């Protein structure tokens, strides 16, 4: 059994191909969305999901989120005094999803399809595969997120032939894919994206707005716990901002309330630069697909950030039509991953469906260029695989050395679209010895092979001698080596994961701690008593008492979230 996983910046989901259709798998709390957050509690136990998200506010130093943004960057995050790679934190999320799938399916899961943003680079893809490995999952396939969304959407398509665009704005990344469907073939015509644009950026605008206008003292900016509370509130606010209704963000800092009121118009103005960045990928994908916007049958939204009214409005404006929203944009990528799992398992229900994808960016090597007077300039980019080539693919570029008696070629490998390598992303470098005398010989063929997972292999052949150099790109020292992975695996297995069966109670406690922080004065005292009662019950290990008090506490929290205060009630 292969499961499909949407490993998101903000939330992650797991789904499986069951009884001929994609089925979402709930987590221990009965929810489909597991926040991509990790926290380590005081006992050294790992918490993943909602509990960890709540603890971002109460224990910012012991909790981490948004780590997908740093995948493959080599950057480590500090958590409870220890340093973790984003791959490891992702692995903890994956492990939790794996456990959810195993609980529902009743058997061990060892293989998964994991989705990645189409525009993820080679290093980011490798990091994702490593994360899977660290979670004990063989990554059968890395699937591009918009392609996954299209797969889920395509299955719902009644029309046998159509072309549509997937507009996928996630928490941290933006992808656009243009697809064509015919005769059961789902062909990605082109993809484009922006790896550093997502819902989190819109949240940050509100966070900055609040700091600038609410009158909260400067010191609050450095208060990690306060910042997390603000982020959580801004996250909700960005989805409320629509029409003319003003939205107020009011938070307590050191027992005093600071508030800031804004509206959709103001928000749109401050978001102008972000919204403008949505254009380039849309334009690029349509152009590469050679399909004009007017000939699209549909525009499909994917990614949680497309719930924002501001983004929907922008999408409507871009395409001159209302985008399709029959499928939940939060679910659609995971559903597509499950469809791909079904395809990989050659499920009978899918025997007539086949999908082809593209590599969304160009890949090539650095070359020198000659000026008309014969002098040379370095730093230029020669493309070997053009963007939006159907994958898997293999292409050859032919190059020759610039020096008359050069003994080696130092091939610098890049990904990107700029003519200048300094604007592109470096994937790695390879040194090849050559034989060249007095300007003769030493020419090489450089073969790039790009597989369906979006991973690149490079082979260099010296033409004169036939000497072959099969090369694995060791990317710019950010990638974990096999030894490092083994070692990390050991450390991760030593981590105690919070037992799944008590996770619901642990999450409730984390939520209660978060809510406790929001309250002031008498409300806080009263609420403290409810929390105390629940904690007593937990210690007693009396199942019935725990259940009773948990539901009491839930009711109280719901009351606070609805009214902002707690009515005095005999305890």
């Amino acid at each position, binding site marked *: 059994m292969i499961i499909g996983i949407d490993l998101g910046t903000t939330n992650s989901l797991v789904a499986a191909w069951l009884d001929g259709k994609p089925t979402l798998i709930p987590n221990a709390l009965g929810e489909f969305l597991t926040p991509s957050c990790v926290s380590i509690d005081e006992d050294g136990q790992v918490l993943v999901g909602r509990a960890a998200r709540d603890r971002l506010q109460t224990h910012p130093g012991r909790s981490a989120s948004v780590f997908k943004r740093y995948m493959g960057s080599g950057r480590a995050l500090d958590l409870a005094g220890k340093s973790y790679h984003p791959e490891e934190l992702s692995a903890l999320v994956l492990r939790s999803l794996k456990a959810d799938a195993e609980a529902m399916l009743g058997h061990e899961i060892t293989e998964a399809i994991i989705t990645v943003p189409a525009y993820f680079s080679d290093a980011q893809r490798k990091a994702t595969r490593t994360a899977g490995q660290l979670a004990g999952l063989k990554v059968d396939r890395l699937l591009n997120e918009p392609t996954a969304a299209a797969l889920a959407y395509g299955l719902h398509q009644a029309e046998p032939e159509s072309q549509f665009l997937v507009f996928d704005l996630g928490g941290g990344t933006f992808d656009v894919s243009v697809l064509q469907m015919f005769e059961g073939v789902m062909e990605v015509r082109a993809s484009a994206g922006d790896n550093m644009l997502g819902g989190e950026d819109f949240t940050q605008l509100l966070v900055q707005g609040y700091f600038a206008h609410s009158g909260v003292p400067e010191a609050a900016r450095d208060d990690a716990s306060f910042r997390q509370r603000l982020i959580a509130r801004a996250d909700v606010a960005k989805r409320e901002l629509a029409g003319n209704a003003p939205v107020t963000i009011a938070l307590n800092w050191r027992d005093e309330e600071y508030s800031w009121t804004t509206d959709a118009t103001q928000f749109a103005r401050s978001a102008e630069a972000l919204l403008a960045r949505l254009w380039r990928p849309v*334009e690029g994908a349509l152009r590469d697909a050679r399909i*004009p916007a007017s000939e699209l049958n549909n525009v499909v939204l994917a990614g949680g950030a497309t719930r924002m009214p501001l983004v929907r409005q922008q999408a409507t404006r871009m395409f001159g039509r209302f985008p399709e929203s029959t499928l939940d944009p939060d679910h659609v990528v995971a559903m597509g991953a499950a469809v791909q799992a079904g395809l990989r398992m050659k499920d009978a229900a899918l025997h007539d469906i086949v999908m082809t994808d593209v590599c969304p960016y160009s890949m090539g090597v650095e070359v020198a260029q000659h000026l*008309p007077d014969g002098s040379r300039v370095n730093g230029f980019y020669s493309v070997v695989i053009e963007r939006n080539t159907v994958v898997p693919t293999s292409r*050859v570029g032919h190059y020759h050395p610039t020096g008359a008696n050069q003994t080696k070629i130092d091939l610098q490998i890049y990904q990107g679209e*700029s003519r200048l390598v300094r604007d592109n992303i470096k994937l790695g470098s390879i040194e090849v010895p050559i034989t060249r005398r007095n300007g003769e010989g030493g020419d090489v063929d450089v073969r790039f092979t790009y597989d369906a997972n979006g991973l690149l292999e490079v082979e260099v052949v010296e033409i004169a001698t036939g000497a072959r150099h099969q090369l694995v790109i060791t990317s710019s020292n950010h990638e974990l080596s096999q030894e490092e992975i083994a070692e990390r695996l050991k450390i991760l297995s030593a981590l105690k994961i919070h037992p799944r069966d008590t996770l619901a109670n642990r999450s409730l406690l984390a939520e209660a701690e978060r809510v406790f922080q929001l309250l002031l004065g008498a409300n806080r005292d009263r609420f403290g008593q409810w929390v105390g009662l629940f904690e007593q019950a937990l210690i007693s290990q009396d199942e019935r008492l725990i259940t009773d008090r948990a539901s009491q506490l839930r009711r109280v929290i719901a009351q606070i979230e609805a009214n902002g205060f707690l009515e005095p009630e005999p305890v």
Partner: protein
Amino acid sequence: MNLPFLEQLGLDQTADATTIRRAYARRLKQVDQEADPEAFAALRTAYEQALAWSEQPNAAAEPVPDAAEPANSRGQSHNSDPQPPPPDRPLVTQAHARFAEALQQWPNVELTEVLRTISTDLHHQAPDQHYLFQWQLLAALAQENAPHRFEIFLAADQVFHLASQSTHAPAPELRNWLDALLVQREAWITQPVGTRERQLNLLQTVQAGTFNRDNAGEIGQMLNRFPTFSSLVVDRDARERWKQAAEESGGIPDAPPPQAFSQAQPPGKRRVNPAASTNSRVIFRFLLFLGIGLSSVYRASMDNHRHSSAPEPSSQTTAQAGVLPTYQASANKAGAPDSFKTQIAACERKLGIDDRLLQGNNERSATARLAVARCIEAH
């Protein structure tokens, strides 16, 4: 004899886009893309070749006598090579007019900001047309007769990020021009600031016709080393004037012309790549028309502004502005001679295309314009 790519798909020359797609789909379902990438690559190549073949107007058994016939039974699919977008799009024209207007205010206007605003507005109003606007503007720059090319280039670089745009070029020739420009600019900016300023000043004296003969060596070197880049400051006629003057005063090395649009590959790098299709060449010519028309829009706007400057040579290119009705007014203002119009008229007659079809805003018209472009190119 059957074509090998059709053979591979189990088709013969009666195939059309639909049957090709169906045959491809059937075979694709029998190939494991991951386990057998070679079989997949072979199938994919055959499919792409077959599609391209089916979309060629005269690929079929009965060759179309001339491309003038716009109705093309195989060209139904939008997968065909990019059609030249209908040029008479009011929003794009408006955008150019706005920019031309701003140019009149130069140097009292921040060109980058203006261009950014225009580009953003166009994005909002008509995302499909932004590409057209961008490349028309660049084609105008490539023409060496729009005023303030250097300033426009700097602004365009800021707004469009030209280094990452050259691979989007609608035609290899325009891409080569932009590539050459970028290479030369890279080399140019590695020089010390003082040298750069001095070089620009010298080039401006060449353009204005006020150059000092003592600087001829340095100017010659600059034109030699950075011909395309220099052409953003010095237009063809000014360069000719300078060359003559320099030769009169003796022994200046012959400066090569700026990147010709035809130079296929920069030296020092050979690529195993299919040659550019003739189709894209024609489209490029077509874009050039637009560029030419545009530069006269910009030129006309400048003529009102600085009548005092050196007499504008009536080069052949300005004359071509009459091609498109949208640019007709400005072309008249620039005093376009009729020779080029005559050429168009001749081609129209030869192909049996009438003026109205040429000016339309649909695919038929686009095809007709292509045919006329091809015809003019043939002369």
